[in-house]
């Protein structure tokens, strides 16, 4: 049998992308209900003081029972579009980063797109607390690669649905919310190279307790997310500070050039220890949204960004280092120009 030869009559037109990309706008959505530590302490035999000491968290927001990750995503997207000065029709792709959309399939992104009245490319990614920074990297490459002109990136979680309120190690850590960003073309570089990676050997450090199949076959209870706090703390502080420095280096930016440091809002103690490791100059604004938002996983970096800009903690057009890290274990960091 002879091997077929290619026809060789057609040539592919290469996609034409933008030279550079930037974040054009960010938006956030925080559910209405404020849950103070006092509401959670009884179930875990703890106190407001104990929780604040260990996490810096004073309160968090929990979404309403009938409020979904899609609802929260849509609300945050409208804000991001408004800041970018764009109509939803300008969006070519929607990327939703989440681990709490409670459908194995389909993804949340197409439903979000539909709710925005568009039929853009739409898909979810699963990179937990690093999901937003992963999605920003993808969106930036899509804009530069020519597969989309404007990408809507959403980090959203309804962690209250996946939290065991009787688990001392995690009951007080998580919150709900959505953050969104629009990535589009730019005349100058405004999203630096992403430094990212994984350590799958530690996959059990933060994980849904049991697989859906085991839940079904062994009649196990609801598989909330569990966490080995000390292991995660060590990895986050001593493992992620070098990653943050690499992202600065890759972008050709010195620590003293930064206007803001926006780490994943995992735990105030992690943020403090990380700053110490990084030896960041003290004039750099540090995101501390965790105090009254708690850890919203994929939503934490965009929510913190939105807040810093809204409250004037960080300047529009300033340089920010953002880093996400979490279940997987996975991480991603990049330097960006704030919208």
């Amino acid at each position, binding site marked *: 049998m002879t091997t077929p030869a290619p026809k060789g009559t057609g040539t592919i037109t290469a996609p034409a992308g933008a030279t550079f990309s930037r974040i054009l706008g960010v938006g956030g959505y925080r559910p209405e209900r404020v849950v103070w530590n006092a509401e959670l302490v009884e179930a875990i035999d703890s106190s407001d003081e104990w929780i604040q*000491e*260990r996490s810096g968290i004073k309160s968090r927001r929990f979404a309403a029972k009938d409020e979904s990750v899609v609802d929260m995503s849509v609300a945050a997207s409208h804000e991001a579009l408004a800041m970018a000065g764009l109509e939803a029709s300008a969006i070519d792709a929607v990327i939703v980063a989440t681990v709490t959309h409670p459908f194995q399939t389909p993804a949340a992104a197409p439903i979000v797109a539909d709710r925005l009245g568009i039929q853009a490319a739409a898909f979810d990614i699963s990179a937990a607390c690093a999901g937003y920074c992963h999605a920003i990297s993808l969106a930036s490459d899509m804009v530069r690669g020519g597969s989309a002109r404007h990408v809507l990136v959403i980090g959203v979680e309804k962690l209250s649905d996946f939290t065991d309120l009787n688990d001392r190690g995690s009951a007080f850590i998580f919150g709900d919310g959505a953050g969104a960003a629009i990535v589009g073309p730019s005349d100058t570089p405004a999203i630096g190279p992403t430094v990212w990676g994984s350590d799958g050997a530690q996959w059990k450090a933060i994980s849904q307790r049991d697989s859906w199949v085991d839940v079904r076959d062994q009649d196990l209870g609801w598989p909330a997310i569990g966490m*080995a*706090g*000390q*292991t995660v*703390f*060590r990895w986050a*502080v*001593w493992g992620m500070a070098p990653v943050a420095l690499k992202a600065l280096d890759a972008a050709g930016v010195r620590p003293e050039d930064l206007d803001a440091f926006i780490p994943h809002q995992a*735990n105030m*103690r992690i943020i403090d*220890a990380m700053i110490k490791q990084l030896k960041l100059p003290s004039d750099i604004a540090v995101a501390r949204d965790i105090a009254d938002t708690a850890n919203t996983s994929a939503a934490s970096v965009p929510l913190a960004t939105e807040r810093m800009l809204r409250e004037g903690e960080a300047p529009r057009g300033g340089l920010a280092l953002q880093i996400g890290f979490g279940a997987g274990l996975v991480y991603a960091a990049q330097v960006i120009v704030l919208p």
Partner: protein
Amino acid sequence: MAQSEQEILEGLAEIVNEETGLDTDSVQSDKSFTDDLDIDSLSMMTIVVNAEEKFGVRIPDDEVKNLKTVGDAVSFISKSQS
């Protein structure tokens, strides 16, 4: 080169002092990290990582929970060095 247990205790006391502000004299072998020194799990992890660096040893996460007293930590580090 391996250090004496007394040297390790003194070094560890400095690390504990840096993390918690506790007086180095209060860091004695029979003291429990949690009950006597009131050190929580995250501070303990910071102490562990700094001890690894200072003494050139590896203290796995799983081992940390067995280090109940200052003396437990000193002997673990001492054994790891030899």
